């Protein structure tokens, strides 16, 4: 692979996940949840990465609307795909954890409901992409939906603060006074995993965008060949 940055990001991801898994599996079990708490080391990073991915879609969509460079449309939908993947992982890990803890895979609770709705927004994004054939128009409309959809992400993040319910508030609070309520090894494991997932997002984004660029190039070539054939 000629692209050294992508390769480097891939190796970093491997290292990070390996180190994160080591600490995640060796950290002490939680006082109340015992070993079940280890699901958190994958659940929280995937939720975090889904936020980054949706935010990435918004930024790339904005850049696309300003410059109309197709590269940013590819990055935007690659990022949205990763966001959908990470949201599904988040919901999956969450339900596995919820079954023994809350006694059910799913409750109609604000955090869960808003996360599921976030998924619907981006599924709508891909439905619309599939309905428009002209690539420039598709990129433009998708960018508009991508930006409008991101509006919704703060609602999801704030849902645990706005509606006090069964879902716990974040282990590490990002807003206001920093407050950490856990064993240092647990925080270490969670931090390493979160960083590793963030690097993985960048790695997968680059790989996916490269693939998308090749698919588009092939489509253009086929179109060109067809035109040549008709002229001949």
């Amino acid at each position, binding site marked *: 692979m000629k692209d050294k940055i992508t390769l480097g990001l891939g190796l970093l991801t491997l290292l990070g996940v390996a180190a994160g898994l080591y600490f995640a599996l060796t950290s002490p079990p939680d006082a109340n949840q015992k070993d079940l708490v280890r699901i958190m080391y994958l659940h929280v990073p995937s939720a975090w990465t889904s936020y980054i991915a949706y935010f990435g879609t918004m930024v790339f969509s904005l850049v696309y*609307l300003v410059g109309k460079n197709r590269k940013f449309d590819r990055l935007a939908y690659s990022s949205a795909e990763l966001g959908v993947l990470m949201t599904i992982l988040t919901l999956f890990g969450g339900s596995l954890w919820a079954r023994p803890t809350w006694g059910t895979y799913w409750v109609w609770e*604000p955090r869960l409901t*808003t996360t599921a*709705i*976030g998924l*619907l*927004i981006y599924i*709508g994004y891909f*439905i*619309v992409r599939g*309905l*428009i054939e002209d690539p420039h*128009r598709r990129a*433009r*409309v998708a*960018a*508009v*939906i991508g*930006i*409008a*959809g991101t*509006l*919704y992400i703060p*609602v999801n993040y704030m849902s645990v603060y*706005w509606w006090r319910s069964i879902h716990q508030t974040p282990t590490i609070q990002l807003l206001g006074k920093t407050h950490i309520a856990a064993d240092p090894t647990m925080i270490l494991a969670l931090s390493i995993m979160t960083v590793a997932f963030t690097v993985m997002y960048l790695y997968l984004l680059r790989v996916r965008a490269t693939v998308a660029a090749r698919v588009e190039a092939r489509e253009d070539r086929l179109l060109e060949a067809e035109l040549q054939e008709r002229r001949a």
Partner: protein
Amino acid sequence: MKQAWIIALKDLRLEGRSKDILTTTVFFSALVVLIMGFALGPDTTRLRESAPGVLWAALAFASILAAQRAFGSEQESGALESLLMYPGGHEWVFVGKLLANYLLMLVLAAVTLVTASLIYDLHYTHLPYLILTVLLGVLGFSIVSVFYAAITVNLRAKESLLPVLMFPICIPVVIGAVSATRVLTQNGMMDELYSWLQLLAGFDVISLLVATLLFPHALEN
């Protein structure tokens, strides 16, 4: 701003002559209120508890019908391109369409509110706050639905696509408006009411800004 008024007046005059939107949406939302009443059964306490949810669900569904007509008349007669060629930014087309849709939706909301209150036997503690909740909530629906109607107007399967795109974004409005209405019909905890009204107002301001800025990109051909 003048362009926006002209477009809004044009749409309202059209509606005044045909009464397409109001007859269909009023009838539709009354049906939703009735069907939910049958589905929930004759227990009056339960009916009263679910009434805020039913009321806003009916308004959300009806707003889809109204939004599909927002660009429908131009689309059918092929006048959308001409509308976009008029001088002045496309933002004003959005604001004009939004104004017309908002006023119609307010009439619809008033009728639905009265019907639902009679059928579900609701009593309100603070009428001015109820009016404020309706003004803010309906504005949220209008902004989102007119914006997505503009995106979907030229797409295949637009009738089914509009709700798919619009409902997820509308969730904060539904949550805020239902909770505020519940406070007003039941416990009257004013602190809680203020935070829901803030959520509604915040959503309206941000989505209005974003929608107005993005609208020219959504519609240009």
